[in-house]
């Protein structure tokens, strides 16, 4: 079942309101328009005129009948005509009949009939075919049983025109008499169309709003997930409009939050390890000198002649001194780790910084490849600390590769970040080791302290940046350090 979201309802209602707002005015206008347009064709003037036309037709027909009737009657009562018929002087009678026939177009035929029905005289101006003319006949008595028969004719088209006009009057009269049902009919049709327009507006609104609301709903869902603590919540970015930008911003915000949380967790962990390192350094460092001095004093104090014992003593003292030395170096590393200074960041152009690093590191410069990137990359960093980062990463890379292998450095800019890549061609790391590589005291080297990369990561994080490691294209590993960029145009090089 189609589920309509609240936001969609609002969009639909907005569209409906937009579509329905003109309704009140339109309803009024339609009502006026219907009434006025109907009144143009159907009004008292038109009907009166048409009815007058009907009257005229009627009068015309009646007049024709009346005239023919009067003329027939006059002829029948004419003494001369009667005498001519009575005496059989048909020539005289014919002249009178002819004048009747030719003098009136509505006379179709005139006959004089004898008492026994024999036609004595007949005059017809022309043929009046029954399909085109309607006729009727009237008779008048003449002396001696004779009769005068006059046939009236009228064109059927004339009668048909009369009927048509009458029908038109009837129709218009009906429209006028039933004006309201017709007007209401128009009104209903308008409402019917309007309702469908509103339905179409709803459907269109639903379809149009769906693409927007779906993305808003995604965003809403993701924010709720985030509110519940799920920092992996992300929104698919489907377009480049405002909602797309909002989604991107949300995703960036979540990335930042996640990075921030990881940074905090990591720094807290490192802080704990630093405290441990500081205590260890303190506890181990103090007895080392007495141990070494004591052993050396023991060696000096021996006056015996036993060569076998002396040999053992020499070996033992050497071992103790060496191990104390190792422990001292370790303690120094621990101390160094425990007492890492605060970052004193200054504006630096990253290409220039890396180039300077390579130039001032003669022991490694011959095995480092660096070609500055095409863009200036302005960042803020603590030069000393970041040199240490580079030294550590480059040294690790060189140690991981062939004795004559090289490490490549790359700098680039993008998405508000300056990126520094340290690419070696060593054997690479297993996935298991890769996950633990930045953990303090984890090392794959035989004589490593496991603090180098932990220190590197802490420094990078203290700079507000991030560090990651991935496999190289062919072999080896790529360490990527990312620092927030600044406007580099005014930075010292």
């Amino acid at each position, binding site marked *: 079942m189609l589920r309509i979201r609240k936001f969609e309802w609002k969009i639909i209602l907005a569209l409906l309101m937009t579509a329905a707002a003109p*309704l009140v005015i339109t309803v009024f206008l339609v009502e006026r328009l219907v009434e006025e347009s109907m009144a143009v064709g159907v009004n008292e003037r038109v009907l009166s005129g048409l009815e007058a036309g009907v009257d005229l037709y*009627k009068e015309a027909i009646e007049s024709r009948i009346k005239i023919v009737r009067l003329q027939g009657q006059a002829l029948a009562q004419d003494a001369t005509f009667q005498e001519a018929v009575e005496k059989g002087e048909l020539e005289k009678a014919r002249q009178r009949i002819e004048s009747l026939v030719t003098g009136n177009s509505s006379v179709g035929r005139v006959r004089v009939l004898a008492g026994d029905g024999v036609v004595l005289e007949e005059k017809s101006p022309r043929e009046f075919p029954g399909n085109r003319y309607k006729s009727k006949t009237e008779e008048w008595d003449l002396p001696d049983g004779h009769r005068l028969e006059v046939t009236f004719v009228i064109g059927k088209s004339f*009668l048909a025109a*009369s009927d048509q006009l009458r029908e038109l009057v009837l129709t218009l009269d*009906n429209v006028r008499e039933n004006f309201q049902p017709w007007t209401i009919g128009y009104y209903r049709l308008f409402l019917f169309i309007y309702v469908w327009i509103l339905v179409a507006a709803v459907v269109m609104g639903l379809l149009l709003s769906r693409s927007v609301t779906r993305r808003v709903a995604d965003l809403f869902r993701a924010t709720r997930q985030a509110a519940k603590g799920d920092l992996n919540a992300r929104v698919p970015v489907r377009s480049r409009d405002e909602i797309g930008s909002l989604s991107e911003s949300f995703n960036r915000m979540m990335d930042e939050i996640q990075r921030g949380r990881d940074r905090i967790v990591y720094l807290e962990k490192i802080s704990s390890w630093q405290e441990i390192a500081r205590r260890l350094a303190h506890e181990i460092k103090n007895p080392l000198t007495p141990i070494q001095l004591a052993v050396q004093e023991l060696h000096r104090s021996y006056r015996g002649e036993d060569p076998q014992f002396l040999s053992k003593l020499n070996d033992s003292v050497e071992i103790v001194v060496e191990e104390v030395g190792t422990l001292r170096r370790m303690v120094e590393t621990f101390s160094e780790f425990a007492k890492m200074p605060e970052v004193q960041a200054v504006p630096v152009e990253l290409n220039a910084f890396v180039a300077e690093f390579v130039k001032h590191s003669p022991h490694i410069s011959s095995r480092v490849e660096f070609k500055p990137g095409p863009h200036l990359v302005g960042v803020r960093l603590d030069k000393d600390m970041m040199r240490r980062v580079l030294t550590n990463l480059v040294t690790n890379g060189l140690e991981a590769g062939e004795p004559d292998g090289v490490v490549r450095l790359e700098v680039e800019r993008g998405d508000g970040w300056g990126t520094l890549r340290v690419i070696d061609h060593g054997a690479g790391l297993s996935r298991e080791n890769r996950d633990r590589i930045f953990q303090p005291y984890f090392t794959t080297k035989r004589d490593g302290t496991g603090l180098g990369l932990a220190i590197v990561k802490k420094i990078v994080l203290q700079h507000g940046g991030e560090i990651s490691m991935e496999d190289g294209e062919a072999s080896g590993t790529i360490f990527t350090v990312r620092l927030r960029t600044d406007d580099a145009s005014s930075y010292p090089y």
Partner: protein
Amino acid sequence: MSGMRFNTMLFSGLAVLCLTAPAFAQVKVEKSYKRDMGLAWREGRLELSMDFPEAFTQRLRKRLYNGFTSRILIEALLKEQKKKTPVAQAIVQYTILYDIWEEEFNIRHETPEGRRDLQVSSLAELIGTCAKLERLPLQCMVELPPGTKYQLRVRIVVNPLSAELRKKVREYLSNPNGSSHIGSPRSFFGSFSKIFVDEKAFQADAVYTYRSPKKILPAKSGPE
């Protein structure tokens, strides 16, 4: 006022407007008369006799003479006192057409039993024929018990709108130009008029209603 409430009101208003649109039609005033009508049993049939010359107004007479076809529908209902269902009824329709050329009125008299045509030559004869009922048999639907009071109601409808005329009006509105060419444009509304126009709301030229006083029927006579 919130948007939701405003919309609810707007659509409610629209719905009411759609539903009540037919109610805007004015109801034509019918003329009513109280008249004593002749009601009698003859040969087992209940017969009605009355006249209604009022129906033949000057306007109707003029229209008749001008050749307009006119119809007069007569409905007679006999109702038992205080009951709505009629116990006897009759229906008659006169269709009158004056033939101007022939100068005579052609009258068609129709009842459920059949029809007959007749001609009269004058208006007086026409009124004498059509403006009165002479021994019109009422169709009894139940046995009418004697001693009960009844009331007779006769409704005369002058020119009720016929289906034929309705069709002509619809055709006129959908094709006002009267063009008979194939593909000639028809008016948009006229094409939908059958759907949207409530033709039941159409009115006749005039309606006259006659009511008799309530009274007890005369005694039944003649063969059962």
